[in-house]
Each structure stands twice: as structure tokens, then as C-alpha cells.
């Protein structure tokens, strides 16, 4: 791992080193190169900070980590790795500004200035609030307790402050008044506090844990979740708490202090409610527990609301077992999975299809709608591949499903249909993990369902949903592709040599269109095993009469010479400009970059995602390892046959890789051609008025 990173650094010193890096290598570059473009276009709207800023805060933390003599440094460094993907558990494709805030650990100085409406303004004032103001605070609280988030922030801050100030009486007084009138509003606050109080502990906990060699994925997951909840709690609170909530417990003083604060708070609060006596603690235990219960419930609810279920980690045996029980397909997990990729689903190929087929006619509560079943089958057998195709097929299947849908008795359409979509999506996921673009589409559909007015009749609701789906397909995919083609064609000049990798339908449309416009150019199709998708593209291009060269990716460096443009498709573009695409793309882009050939990524904006991903490990898809073992038409290549029996061999067939933004010259979207640094802008500006509403 280390050597690889190092090697990459040699090739391209611009690469941000955030992934699997020891703190030491980080230290030399304190101000992580923040592309100026990210901040430049929209400097003021700190509401949704551009995700590129995230590493900024992490790096000082790691450096401080390094200075503090911690028993085992592994968890913090893991934290560094895990922190960025914390974002990825956000609802796919949603663009929720508050989530974005959670994801970033920005200083309050930037944020509180113009933060979201209810949360920050009181916080800000609270920061300077003297104790005498506490009663006014209570009044404020009453006014504010309509909004859960806002109030929670306010309460937590206020209590923290009060604990620090160690003058509890007046604060307590304030609480009395507030709790008397606004007790409903304050419950969530308590809950959040509880969560917050629990979380620093969880954040600290891992320190003894690493003693047993390594934390399991599940544990790390739990920690991460806890920390996320902590972030939710700390939303709108000052920097220090946010930083702690971020999980960086490196600075011992720092970490211990707020946690004690919070502990004090969590203990104190019930006291406030119950016996109205300043702080001291002995007779409040039962109250704590009862309060805790309700608080926990509320916090559970809150959590569920704020944080969507994290992606399934397939090395978590319990969850896998649970998911299996709920799944229609019986699947056997593959043995000999590659260690680093254990969290990704991998099943023995060939076991799923028969099981699915045998269930074809069976009546089962899990049984999906026929159209969805069909699409699932087609995913499973790779009959439908490619981001757009899969997305359209899924949407059309959902369209059919909605068409046939009728609300059962005593249920509301909104809830029941959402649940139905969820179960269908999980069915599709068992067939093949869904892509980011599909996630976005699902998110879109669900928002549409959720935003249906209650009064609307079932027929109208279905009709409007169907229209919405059609519109999505039309606008976000069909028209978008046309626009991309229009933009991209302008970049093709006579005499160009264009290179592409694999088979992207947009790129194909571009090439064909340019050819139809009479441009004279050559195409180099780079292909890679085992899927050899380029052959299909090549065949179609040749059928149209284009002049093509075909080669495999191992000849990329040679083939790149003389190429004037590289056009590549993408499965997704992430907000740090990383292009997530068919495996091999990164390699092609890197070679092109090294030789100074411009790399154009063609991607519709519905595939954009605000996730930040720095490597292709956290989220990826594993293909059939046997596909690497067998070479079609080469019976003499058999040395790997029976590899599954060997304990010492792991075969890894990755489906996607992440191309760093540095290799990408330009991303061609339907909104125009933008540099990769502008992806957050698109995400922010065009998702705000999304295809929703």
C-alpha cells in the first residue's frame, strides 16, 4: 500500500495524500492543496461547504495525533481514513445541506456567520451569553422549540456553557422555565445530548480496543456511526465540540474536557428536571434511566431520520445473516475473498441465478413485481449493463410497478409505496449492487413519493409519479446525453485521434455524431479483460464506418502516443472531482495525463454525487473472480484453474476504480464543460432546485 502511494506521488506530486497514509507523510504538507477553483466560484455560501475543505481539518488533527503519545496509533489513522467516507452513508444522491454540514468539520467562525436559519443564530449569541441572560435564553427556547434541530443545538450549547461556567443555578432556573413550557421541545434536545454524551465515549473507547490487534469492521462501523451521531448533536455548536465529535480524540486534554463536560451535562440534565437542585448526583439514577429510555428512543428516531442506514458491510456476519433471511435469493458467499475488500458483497457466481429462477413462480411476500424481477434477472446475468441502461431499466420497472400498484386497505399510498420501493430496491441490490446513478434516481423517486400531497387520489398520484419518472428519464438521461454530445462534438477537430476505454454509450454517441457531422478523426478503442466491452463498441463503430484502432490496456502507454483527446465515460463523478468509472479508466487517464493528452469525462449530472472518495476500496463492486481465471478461447491457459481451493491465492476482479481529479482535464456534462473542481458547484447549484419540485 505504502509503496504504491509513494509511487503515485512520484508520478504526480499534486495528488492529495489523504487515503492510506501515515501521519508522517502527511506532515510535510500541512495545507493540503485545496484547488482554488473549488472555493472560488461560490465563496460565500458556507452553508454547504465544498467538500474539498474536509481534509484541511483532518490533517492538523493527525499531526497532533502524532505528537501525542497514544498507546496504539492505529485507530486514529483509521479514523482519518474513515472520516471522509463518513459522507457516503448519506442518502445516495440527496443533497441535504445540513448533512453536508455534518460531514464537514468546519470551524464555527466560518459557519455561524450565516448558518442555517434556526440553528446557528441562537448559538452564536449563546457563545457570548452571560449567565444573567439565561432566563432570556429560556424564553428564546420557547420560541424556538418548534424546530427540533435548532432547539437541540441551543440546548446542548447552553448546557455545555453552563457546565463550564459552573454557575448552575441560573441556568437551572432557565431550564425550569423552559422545561415547564417547552418540555416537548426539549426532549429531543435531551436525546441528542445523550447521544452526544455517549459518543465521545465511543470515540474514546477504541483506544483500549486496538490492543486486541485490530478492530473488526463492525466495531469500526459502530464507532463511526456513533461519531456521526455526535456530529449531528454537535451541529451548530462551536468548533471545539465539533472537532471532538469528529472523533479526533487525539489531544487528550481536549478530548477529556468536553467529554467530561458532556458527561456532566448528561447527568445534570435529569437533575434539573427532577429535583431542581444544583448539580450534585446521587438520588437521580432512576430518573436518569427512565429519562434515558425516552431519550434513547428519541435519539434512535433522530438517528434514523438524520442518518440513513449505512451501506451494508459484508464482513459483518450478523448483518449479512439478517439480510440473507430477508432476501429472496439464496446466495452463497464466496470463499477466499481479498482481505481489503471483504466489506463488499461477493457471492459465488452461478448460485444466485438458479435460486432466483426457481423462485420465479413462487408466491412469496418478498416476491417483487414481475418487471422488477425481470430487471433483476437481467442485472444478474449482465444482460443489462452500463449506468444509463441500468438506471433506465430500473425506472421503467418501477414505472410498471407503480402502474400496477394499488394501495392496500388501511395504508397510505405514500408510506406503503415507499416501503415497496425499498423492498424492490433491496431485491435489485441482491441481484447486483446498485450504481450511484441508480441511487440518485431512487432518491429522486422517493422524494417525489414523499412530496405527494395527502389529498391527492391514488390514480392521480400514480399518474403524476409515472409522469415524473418519464420526465426524469427524458430530461436527465436522454436530453442530457444529447447536450453532452453537442458540447463534446465541438471539441473534436479534423485530424484528431480520439481514444476511449471500454464502452460508454455517451462516448459512442459522441463519436458517431462527430462522424456524421463529417469530422475526420480516428478512434483508438482501448479494451480490458475480462469483459472486453470495447469489442462491442468497436463493432458498432466499424459498422458506422469509423476508422478505428483496437488495443488492450496493457498497450495504453504506446497507444496514447499520438492521441489528441481522450474521451471517457463515468459511472459517477464525486464532489472532489474523483471520477468513479469502469476499472481501467484511471490507468488510461493517468497515462494520458502523463503524456499531456487532455482527458474529457462525459457524464450526465444525475450521476454526480456529493460523496468524497479518495480510493476505490471503500465502495466498489467485485466481479466474478473466475472471469480472470478463464481466458476465452485459450484452453492452454489453465494454471489458475481450481484456484478457489488454494488458501494462498486471492483473485480480485474489481469493477470500478477512482480516477483522481488531477488526471481529468474536463468533465462534459449537459450543463456545459466544467473542470473537475466545479463538481461541487454543480451539485450545489443545480440540485437545490432539483428535478424535485
Amino acid at each position, binding site marked *: 500500500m505504502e509503496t504504491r502511494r509513494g509511487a503515485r506521488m512520484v508520478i504526480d506530486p499534486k495528488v492529495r495524500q489523504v487515503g492510506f497514509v501515515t501521519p508522517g507523510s502527511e506532515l510535510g504538507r500541512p495545507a493540503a492543496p485545496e484547488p482554488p477553483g473549488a472555493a472560488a466560484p461560490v465563496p460565500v455560501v458556507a452553508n454547504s461547504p465544498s467538500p474539498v475543505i474536509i481534509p484541511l481539518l483532518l490533517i492538523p488533527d493527525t499531526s497532533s495525533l502524532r505528537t501525542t503519545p497514544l498507546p496504539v496509533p492505529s485507530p486514529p489513522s483509521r479514523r482519518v481514513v474513515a472520516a471522509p467516507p463518513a459522507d457516503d452513508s448519506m442518502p445516495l444522491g440527496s443533497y441535504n445541506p445540513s448533512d453536508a454540514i455534518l460531514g464537514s468539520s468546519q470551524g464555527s467562525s466560518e459557519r455561524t456567520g450565516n448558518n442555517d436559519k434556526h440553528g446557528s443564530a441562537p448559538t452564536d449569541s449563546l457563545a457570548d451569553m452571560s449567565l444573567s441572560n439565561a432566563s432570556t435564553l429560556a424564553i428564546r427556547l420557547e420560541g424556538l422549540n418548534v424546530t427540533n434541530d435548532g432547539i437541540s443545538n441551543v440546548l446542548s450549547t447552553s448546557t455545555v456553557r453552563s457546565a463550564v461556567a459552573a454557575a448552575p443555578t441560573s441556568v437551572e432556573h432557565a431550564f425550569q422555565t423552559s422545561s415547564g413550557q417547552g418540555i416537548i421541545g426539549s426532549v429531543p434536545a435531551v436525546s441528542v445530548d445523550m447521544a452526544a454524551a455517549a459518543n465521545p465515549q465511543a470515540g474514546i473507547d477504541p483506544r483500549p480496543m486496538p490492543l486486541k490487534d485490530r478492530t473488526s469492521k463492525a466495531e469500526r462501523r459502530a464507532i463511526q456511526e456513533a461519531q456521526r451521531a455526535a456530529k449531528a448533536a454537535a451541529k451548530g455548536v462551536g468548533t471545539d465540540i465539533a472537532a471532538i465529535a469528529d472523533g479526533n480524540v487525539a489531544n487528550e486534554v481536549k478530548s477529556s474536557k468536553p467529554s467530561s463536560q458532556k458527561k456532566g451535562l448528561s447527568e445534570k440534565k435529569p437533575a434539573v428536571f427532577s429535583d431542581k437542585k444544583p448539580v450534585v448526583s446521587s438520588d437521580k439514577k432512576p430518573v436518569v434511566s427512565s429519562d434515558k429510555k425516552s431519550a434513547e428512543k428519541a435519539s434512535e428516531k433522530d438517528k434514523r431520520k438524520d442518518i440513513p442506514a449505512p451501506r451494508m458491510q459484508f464482513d459483518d456476519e450478523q448483518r449479512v445473516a439478517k439480510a440473507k433471511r430477508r432476501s429472496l435469493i439464496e446466495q452463497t458467499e464466496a470463499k477466499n475473498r481479498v482481505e481489503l475488500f471483504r466489506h463488499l458483497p461477493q457471492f459465488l457466481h452461478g448460485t444466485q*441465478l438458479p435460486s432466483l*429462477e426457481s423462485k420465479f413462480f413462487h408466491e412469496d411476500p418478498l416476491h417483487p413485481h414481475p418487471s422488477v*424481477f425481470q430487471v433483476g434477472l437481467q442485472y444478474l446475468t449482465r444482460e443489462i449493463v452500463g449506468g444509463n441502461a441500468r438506471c433506465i431499466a430500473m425506472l421503467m420497472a418501477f414505472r410498471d410497478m407503480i402502474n400496477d400498484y394499488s394501495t392496500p386497505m388501511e395504508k397510505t399510498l405514500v408510506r406503503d409505496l415507499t416501503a415497496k420501493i425499498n423492498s424492490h430496491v433491496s431485491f435489485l441490490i441482491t441481484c447486483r449492487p446498485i450504481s450511484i446513478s441508480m441511487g440518485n434516481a431512487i432518491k429522486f423517486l422517493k422524494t417525489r413519493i414523499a412530496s405527494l400531497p395527502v389529498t391527492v387520489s391514488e390514480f392521480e398520484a400514480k399518474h403524476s409519479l409515472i409522469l415524473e419518472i418519464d420526465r426524469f428519464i427524458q430530461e436527465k438521461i*436522454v436530453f442530457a446525453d444529447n447536450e453532452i454530445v453537442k458540447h463534446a462534438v465541438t471539441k473534436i477537430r479534423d485530424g484528431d485521434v480520439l481514444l476511449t476505454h471500454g464502452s460508454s454509450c455517451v462516448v459512442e454517441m459522441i463519436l458517431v455524431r462527430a462522424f456524421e457531422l463529417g469530422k475526420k478523426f480516428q478512434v483508438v478503442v482501448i479494451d480490458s479483460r475480462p469483459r472486453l466491452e470495447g469489442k462491442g463498441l468497436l463493432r458498432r463503430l466499424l459498422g458506422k464506418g469509423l476508422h478505428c484502432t483496437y488495443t488492450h490496456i496493457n498497450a495504453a502507454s504506446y497507444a496514447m502516443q499520438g492521441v489528441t483527446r481522450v474521451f471517457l465515460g463515468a459511472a459517477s463523478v464525486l464532489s472532489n472531482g474523483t471520477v468513479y468509472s469502469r476499472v481501467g479508466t484511471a490507468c488510461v487517464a493517468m497515462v494520458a495525463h502523463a503524456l499531456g493528452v487532455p482527458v474529457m469525462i462525459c457524464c450526465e449530472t444525475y450521476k454526480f454525487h456529493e460523496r468524497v472518495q479518495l480510493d476505490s476500496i471503500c465502495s466498489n463492486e467485485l466481479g466474478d473472480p473466475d472471469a480472470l481465471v478463464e481466458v476465452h478461447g485459450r484452453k492452454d491457459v489453465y494454471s489458475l484453474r481450481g484456484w478457489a481451493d488454494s488458501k494462498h491465492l486471492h483473485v480480485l476482479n474489481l469493477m470500478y476504480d477512482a480516477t483522481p481529479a488531477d488526471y481529468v482535464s474536463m468533465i462534459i456534462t449537459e450543463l456545459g464543460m466544467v473542470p473537475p473542481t466545479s463538481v461541487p458547484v454543480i451539485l450545489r447549484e443545480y440540485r437545490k432546485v432539483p428535478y424535485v419540485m
Partner: protein
Amino acid sequence: MGPIMKFQVVVLAGGMSKKLFPLVSKDVPKALLPVGNRPVLSYVLELLEANNLKDLIVVVAGEDAAVRVGGWITEAYDGRLHVEVAAVSEDIGTADALRAVLHRLVVDDVLVVSGDIVSDVPLGAIAAAHRRKRAVLTAMLCSSPSASTAEAISSTGKDKAKKPSPIDIVGLDTSHQHLLFLASGTQVDKDVKIRRSLIRVVDQMEIHMDLMDAHLYAFNRAILQEVLELCQGIKSIKQDLVPYLVRSQSKFGAIASGDTQTEAVGKTPNKDDSGQPQTPMQDIVPLPQHILPGVLHPASLELTCCVYIASEGKYCSRVNSIQTYGDINRDVAGELVFLTGYTVSNQNNVIHPTAEIGSKTTVGPQCMVGDGSKLGDKCSVKKSIVGRHCRIGSNVKIINSVVMNHVTVEDGCLIQGSVICSNVHLQERANLKDCQVGAGYIITANSEHKAEALSKREKS
């Protein structure tokens, strides 16, 4: 609750079969011919039931036969299956029979099953293959039993085999998923003609002789209806309809440009594209069709004919000749006994508890004896099936044979490789070898028959 997964099932139970003369008579239509002491049709119905397909349309040729079949079904499957029995006139082809029930088909796809299949293939797999390819036609192929026994037949002599069971010539693509050519051996005289245009489109085609069309098809309902209505000349599914669809597929070609849709089969009906996004602008570049055949442009659904090849372990066979009838009976009594649902004894045979067996009588493995049958002393039953309420005297040898219900066999008879229908009377010391005896026939004492088909009508 509508049909599950939008599939409807049509069982073509047939009526009288000339090939099975003299086993099939007016009293016993082909569907009710006992195989392993159960009507053939029950195997199909149970296969369907096991696959949760409970709404069936059974088409029977001939009014009388329909009444009989319907009566039997209601008796045997009352409450378990919902079966509509439709009668069509005799002497019409299978496609005509299908045409007769066409108006009852409403959902997306139709599974057409021949009533004489004995099989344990998973129907879900066929349906799934059909669906995921969006095929017009999916035919099930199974490895042909005749391939292995063909030499055996020819070696045992021409007198026995009426005809070598027809060999299907199947053309597949290299992935073994698409059906490119199908001709049954009976149609082919000497040469198989394959059009060059087909080869041009598909590059490679594998010709298989070892596969047999199992007469189990999944059709796209809309196209099936259109074809059957447009082309009244299509009489038989196997001989006309399937080759027609396969041929028109190659005109469109899985790869060839799919714009020539003015073919007779042509236009796939534009089902429910009311809300289909219509491109308003003219200069829109359509998405390449290959990315989504038929999803974005349902009107341009390609005609593809697919196959599902039954896996090795699965059994599939049809009762369509005397030869196969005997084979299947033996198989059912032997390794396929699980299909019948009977419990197997330690001796690897099935003897109904009410059957009485005399002293020193041996019933070998892979035999069946139905309820109420009486076997006398010193009999020997080997690899045979004895039906219900038979009375068999002593010193009788039954080898490799099928004896149906209510048969009386007197002392000292020898039955080898024969099929004895119901109510036959064999008088003392009759000797039958490779014979088929029609229902109600009386064989006189001491007579000897070899490779004959004996039936009442013949006699009268």
C-alpha cells in the same frame, strides 16, 4: 390476484394419437394414458402445480375426450388447481388448438406445454430465461434420448422400430442461448438448408442433433396472437409456428439493424405506451438501441427466439410413440419414481398395500403393482408395471412390459416387452413378445404373437 408473474399456461393435452395406436382409444384419450399407473397428464399438472402455476387452460381434441379429461381433472385436482378444459375438434394441428384459446390469453406471456411431457425441469428457469431475454419464443430443449438409443434401435432390427424417433436439428448460437434454426428430422429429407444471410448475421452457428425440442414453449402473447391471426396457414406449433418465428427473427437479426418492421410478423404491438416519453424534437439522437433493447423503444422490440437447455440431471421426455411410452414407463418405475409420489419399498419397487401376491412370486426391482391386483403363485415380474385390479394367474412371467388396469392374465402366460391395455384377457399360455394389445382384446389360449399390434377394431 392475477396470474403470477404475468404468465398463463396452456396445456395441449391432445386427443387421439395415431402414433400411439392401439394404446389410445376412445375410452382412453392420450392424456389419460397411464404411465406408472397414473395418467400422463398428471405429470404435467403436477409439474405446473409444483411451480405454483395453478390457473391452467387444458385444450383437448375431441368433445368426448374433453369430457373425460375434464372429469378426471376435477376428480383428481379439485381445489388444488383451477383448470379450464377447452375442447377443440379433432384432427387439427397444435397451432390451431392454440388459436382456439387465443382469446382467453390476456397477460404478457404464455407458457405452452404439451400434455404428454414427463419431466422435472424447473419451469421458473424457462420463464426466467424468456423474460430476461425479452424473447418472442423460448423453447425448451433437452438432450435427446434417441441420440443414445438410436444405434440400439437400428441394431435390434427394423421390424421393431416403427420409425426412428424424429431427430430435431437445432441451430444455436455460440452462447447456447439463441435459437437460430429448428427443423424436425421428419421434415428433413436429405439436406438441411440454412440461408446464407443468417450465417452472415450470426457469424457462427452450432448445429445440434443431440437436442430434442421438448414441446414446452414460452411465447410472447402479443406476438403470438398477431402471428396466429395473420397467418392462418400455420397449423402446427412445431412444424410451422416455431420455424416461422425463428426465421423472422433472423430477418431482424439480433445484430442486424432492426428497422424493417413491416414484416408480416413485424410490428410488435405497442402495448400501453400511453405515458411513453415521446421525443418532441427531431434532432434528438436516439440512445443507441443496443443499450436497452425494448426498454426505451418498446416498439422496436427485437424478435429473439431463445432456448433453455435442460441441465443434465433433469429428465424430460415425451410420450409420443410406443417406443417412448415403454421407455418412460420403465424410467418412471425406476429412477424417476419420485415423480409419481409413491413410496418405494426396500426392494426398490412399488407395490400397493392392497395388492395380493402369491407365494413364490417375485416382483423385481423397478416394478410397480397397482392396488387391488392379484398375482398368483410362482409368477415373475421384472421391470414391468402392473395396473390396478389385475388378476394374474400363476406361473406368469411379465418382463419389460406394461400391463394396464383390469387385465386378466391366465396361468402360464409369458409377456415380454409388450403393452397390454385395460380389460384385456389373456388366456392360458399366451405368449406375447413386443406386442401392443388394445383395450378389451381377448387373446386366445396358446397363441403366440410377436411384434404385433392387436386391437379389437382390427379383429372385428
